[in-house]
């Protein structure tokens, strides 16, 4: 009764508001909010100087560079190929298209540890693909990038695909009758329509890559200063019982993640407005 009186904007004949919202709030508090707040409260036990010391050692800085750099480059490649694959799935027909379409989600469904050992085997020096390359992939920063490309692809495809499906084909016909070449039509008409979705997909892939652990640690080699990602560093600190140090780095990552979440929400709002304006 308390919840409905305090929060409901409009009386409803349907029952169960208190029970449903009460349970949802209790559950979300116990599982998500209270444990997450523990990370921030633990960090407050450190002084500002201690916090800076824990989060800016050369080894930690090297892990940021690798994590952010590899995630950015992976999301970039995903943005390009994600748009290409989405275009291929929406506009063209070819044998086995449905299977290919379903398999786009493989990185969502395949456990990260499984992906990790498979990618390591393939790109190892004697692996299926690695043996043809003049440079090493497994156990180098390039390996980190490969793993992050794997896990990020569906984010771009699945955000761009529905928008591309909804693109009004008459717009393209108009562009053609006005004398635009096919490339002009794509770059000046279609691309601006899918751009918000593409950026959203890019941000989603980037955010996911930043926190990724399972698929990366097998292929990375995990050498400090060279191929050690930030999530692994958190685990290393934990194993050394440096809880405050691990939590300080975690808080840095959490703040970045929350900022990205905000950016993604803004991008999605922009995408909805853009789509609503055209469709």
């Amino acid at each position, binding site marked *: 009764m308390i919840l409905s009186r305090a*929060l*409901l904007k409009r009386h409803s004949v349907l029952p169960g508001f208190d029970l449903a919202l009460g349970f949802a709030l209790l*559950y979300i508090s116990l*599982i998500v909010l209270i444990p997450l707040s523990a990370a921030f409260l*633990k960090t407050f036990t450190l002084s500002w100087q201690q916090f800076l010391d824990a989060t800016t050692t050369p080894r930690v800085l090297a892990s940021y560079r690798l994590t952010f750099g590899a995630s950015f480059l992976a999301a970039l490649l995903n943005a390009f190929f994600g748009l290409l694959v989405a275009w291929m799935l929406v506009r063209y027909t070819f044998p086995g298209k449905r299977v290919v379409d379903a398999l786009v989600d*493989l990185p969502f469904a*395949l456990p990260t540890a499984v*992906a990790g050992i498979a990618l390591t085997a393939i790109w190892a020096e004697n692996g299926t693909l690695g043996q043809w390359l003049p440079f090493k992939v497994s156990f180098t920063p390039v390996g980190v990038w490969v793993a992050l490309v794997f896990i990020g692809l569906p984010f771009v495809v699945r955000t761009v695909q529905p928008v591309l499906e909804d693109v009004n084909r008459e717009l393209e016909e108009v562009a053609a009758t006005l004398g635009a070449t096919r490339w002009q039509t794509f770059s000046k008409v279609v691309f601006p329509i899918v751009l918000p979705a593409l950026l959203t997909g890019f941000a989603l892939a980037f955010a996911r890559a930043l926190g990724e652990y399972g698929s990366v640690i097998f292929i990375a080699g995990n050498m400090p200063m060279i191929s050690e990602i930030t999530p692994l560093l*958190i*685990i290393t600190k934990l194993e050394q019982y440096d809880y405050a140090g691990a939590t300080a780095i975690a808080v840095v990552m959490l703040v970045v993640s929350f900022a990205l979440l905000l950016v993604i929400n803004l991008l999605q709002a922009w995408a909805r407005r853009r789509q609503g304006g055209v469709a």
Partner: protein
Amino acid sequence: MSTAVLQSAAIEVQPAARLRSATGEAPWVRRLVIALGLGFMTLFLFVPLATVFHEALKKGWDVYLAAITEPDALSAIKLTLVAAGISVPLNLAFGLAAAWAIAKFEFRGKNLLLTLIDLPFSVSPVIAGLIYVLVFGLQGWFGAWLQAHDMKVIFAVPGIVLATVFVTFPFVARELIPLMQAQGIEQEEAARVLGAGGWQIFWRVTLPNVKWALLYGVILCNARAMGEFGAVSVVSGHIRGQTNTMPLHIEIVYNEYQFAAAFAVASLLALLALVTLLLKYLVEQRVRGQRREAGDRAE
């Protein structure tokens, strides 16, 4: 006269023909895009998938069967089933409650709640494990109390379940909320006016309307629950035969250079992934149909 007819016919035909080629790409562009797209997917998706099965069976069926029936592997499989068996129903119950409140009522703070539901997706799995260590670990808030009462959460099964619940938290709610919002509340209101009670409405009206979306959410939730690695790795303690799930068992065996055995257990999870994708595809068709129906009704 005849030339005039010809001319007008030409004017009618010509733009149509030009349009067809003008809103589609040249054949070579089409072929190039398909080749690049499939090539990329082969390199990054299909080859890894095939590798799992190839490596698993490389040393023959005997090695394969031995790897997935050894006691440690079996206990890992069992623990994975337990963790998913507890976390999926919990998140299903949450998803239904949250969707009921959000889709059927107008209340203050709704957008905040929606954002909070998505929060676990943006948290690194490693951090998801870490926060439970901070709460329940020996040095954590409840560490001393738990030890005094001889209970263990971290480095034990409860911690694994909690970490799994966290990372699979949004799946069911995310599928249910948009569908139930689109469906509106007329049917439930009608049932109410006709004298149905709350649970009756829920079981007879709401649940049948969302059953495919619910199943879809459960499938995704289950796949993630069984495959979670990072979060579970932090809280598990890696005690063989006791606190190893399948992904953790794969890691241990792999680090001991028993590659065939590691890939054998991995192939079980890869099969699960393929079944997940198949079910997902089948259910997706139904969900789309239902959403379209709901959309039509709303208009």
